[in-house]
């Protein structure tokens, strides 16, 4: 994030079972919301940016770092510094909520505040299998933010939250974005949420931006 | 004691000995230690075949006490022992045993098949010396090839296993050395096998050629034929 404006450039192709994913996208210091029918390739896009899976060809770039380029060895996940809230959370089942959050912790102060705001303070000693679905989702959110990433990928981050908690989390995310000014991609099925959170909305269908 | 090739204050001598000698050695070693106070004596026990294999592979052994000539010959042919050190120091004899509750005794091996016992334990003739001698005796009596004998034989990997089979009652009869009997009260002699029926059972000793203390080792080997040692051997059933 030195110098110029933070930017995530994503332009690739990947053939999936039923269609081919074509994506060409540039995200500045903004929140982009990604919407589209179930199975249209949203998670796959995030996976490719995070490095969990790889495109067939194209280029992915974050600031000055090339994350992926056709026929070159992709940059390892751990060198990308991208925060990722997985759709199924992927919490560490053998660690308490506290340990989960501390795992990649860089921004102590923020996290302390976040834990309060999203309301997971009483859960710090619980293991993931001992907490509710929405609680897991909030833990995963805090964990992704704790690493102070250069870009943030959120796969339906508020889907398991009630109205009130959802608004609190949304507002906090907006505040953090204000402060960090990093590219954020947020997948959601809520049109309202997309409107509220996104500087821009991107509509996906069968692997194509429309 | 003259010892010119080593300047270390204590010397180590390793004796590889057939398992059947373990009791005897427990009494002999202290005697040797008295004679050679600055020598540490280590004993390695095993079946003669295993010990010979270890020596062939260069295991650090100085003296080999075998329960059988065959293994010593094998080493001598490969020049792994010092030929002039080879000494016969003990002999043994073969007995047919049954459990201590057995009510009969035999006068001759010929009657073996007349006994209604369904199992006869014998060391595997190919690898256990006691088995080899038993086989010779049975062959001399023209019994070995008989189907009703063959069908009764159970082969063991060592003499101890024969004793176990007989003492537990699973085999009615078994061939072991006379020296094995004093270890076990649950078996008794049914027949002492005539020594003319098999090649002599003689225990040879020799110094291994790779030894670093050939002189001490040779003296120790010779010491085995001393009357002190022979008395001990007698006590354990090895006639001299």
């Amino acid at each position: 994030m030195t110098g110029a404006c933070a930017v995530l450039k994503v332009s690739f192709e990947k053939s999936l079972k039923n269609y081919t994913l074509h994506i060409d996208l540039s995200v500045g210091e903004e929140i982009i919301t990604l919407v589209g029918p179930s199975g249209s390739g949203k998670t796959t896009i995030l996976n490719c940016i995070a490095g969990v899976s790889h495109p067939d060809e194209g280029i992915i770039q974050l600031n000055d770092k090339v994350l992926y380029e056709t026929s070159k060895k992709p940059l390892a996940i751990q060198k990308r510094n991208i925060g990722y809230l997985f759709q199924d959370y992927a919490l560490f089942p053998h660690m308490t909520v506290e340990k989960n959050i501390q795992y990649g912790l860089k921004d102590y102060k923020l996290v302390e505040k976040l834990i309060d705001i999203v309301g997971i303070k009483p859960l710090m000693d619980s293991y993931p299998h001992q907490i509710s679905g929405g609680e897991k989702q909030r833990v995963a959110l805090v964990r992704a933010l704790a690493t102070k990433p250069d870009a943030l990928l959120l796969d339906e981050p508020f889907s398991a939250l009630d109205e009130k908690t959802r608004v609190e989390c949304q507002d906090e995310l907006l505040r953090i974005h204000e402060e960090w000014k990093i590219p954020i991609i947020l997948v959601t099925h809520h049109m309202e949420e997309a409107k509220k959170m996104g500087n821009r909305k991107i509509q996906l269908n069968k692997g194509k931006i429309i | 004691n003259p010892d010119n090739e080593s300047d270390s204050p204590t010397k180590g001598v390793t004796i590889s000995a057939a398992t059947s000698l373990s009791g005897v050695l427990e009494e002999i070693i202290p005697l040797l230690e008295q004679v050679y106070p600055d020598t540490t004596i280590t004993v390695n026990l095993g079946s003669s075949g295993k010990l010979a294999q270890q020596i062939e592979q260069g295991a650090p052994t100085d003296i080999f006490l075998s329960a059988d000539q065959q293994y010593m010959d094998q080493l001598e042919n490969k020049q792994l022992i010092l030929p002039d050190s080879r000494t016969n120091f003990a002999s043994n004899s073969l007995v047919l045993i049954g459990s201590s509750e057995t009510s009969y005794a035999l006068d001759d091996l010929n009657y073996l098949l007349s006994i209604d016992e369904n199992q006869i334990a014998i060391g595997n003739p190919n690898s256990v010396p006691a088995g080899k001698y038993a086989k010779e005796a049975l062959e001399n009596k023209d019994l070995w090839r008989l189907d009703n004998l063959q069908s009764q034989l159970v082969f063991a990997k060592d003499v101890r296993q024969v004793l176990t089979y007989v003492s537990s009652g699973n085999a009615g009869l078994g061939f072991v050395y006379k020296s094995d009997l004093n270890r076990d009260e649950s078996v008794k002699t049914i027949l002492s096998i005539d020594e003319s029926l098999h090649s002599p059972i003689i225990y040879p000793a020799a110094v291994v050629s790779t030894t670093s203390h050939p002189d001490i080792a040779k003296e120790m080997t010779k010491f085995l034929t001393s009357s002190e040692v022979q008395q001990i051997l007698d006590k354990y059933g090895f006639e001299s």
Partner: protein
Amino acid sequence: MNYTPLWLSLKIAGIATIIVLIMGIFLARILSRNQFPGKRIIESFLLLPLVLPPTVVGFGLLFLFGKNGPIGSLLLKWFDFQVVFTWVGAVIAAIVVSFPLMYQSAAASFGQYDKNIENAAYTMGSSKWKVFWTVSLPLAWPGLLAGLILTFARALGEFGATLMIAGYIPNQTETIPLAIYFAVESGNTNEAIFWVIGISMIGFAALIWLNWWSGRNILRFTNNQ
């Protein structure tokens, strides 16, 4: 009563277990992530010490590590060290016979958890090494623990191969199994029973301790109760 076999057995089985644990996990991890044509051949080769009689394994080791053997001669030349008839020989025997147990258990357990959890750890910037220690290892732990228990037990009980390469030398290579064997051999039933009880208690203590220790340090997640 002479307690040397006890200490000797603990030392030999302990060292062998640690080495097998490290090597087994390492190899299982590498092989379980890669598919290549000769993999099954390597795996069945690793299984070999299990299908051969220990005495025959010992014979093979004696051949390899003997004075004139391919490895033994080098050790002798380079380090002036002889393996045969030493407790180190017993450690080698224990390693070889217990290795398949660790390898198979480890390979299975590395295939039994959700790999996406490792990916999550990577997205937090953790090195491969950190992820391995803090995520892969604990997630695979139940199977690894089973392997560890089997390995220690097998190493503790190793007899045939040990006798061949380390010899039966009282106070130097006389482990508990050898003590039991020769006590039985020489009709010394009381001593045999003493050591059978002794080795059972060690096995029991190790089982208790391993379960307790791993429960405290590694496996505090109980997603299955």
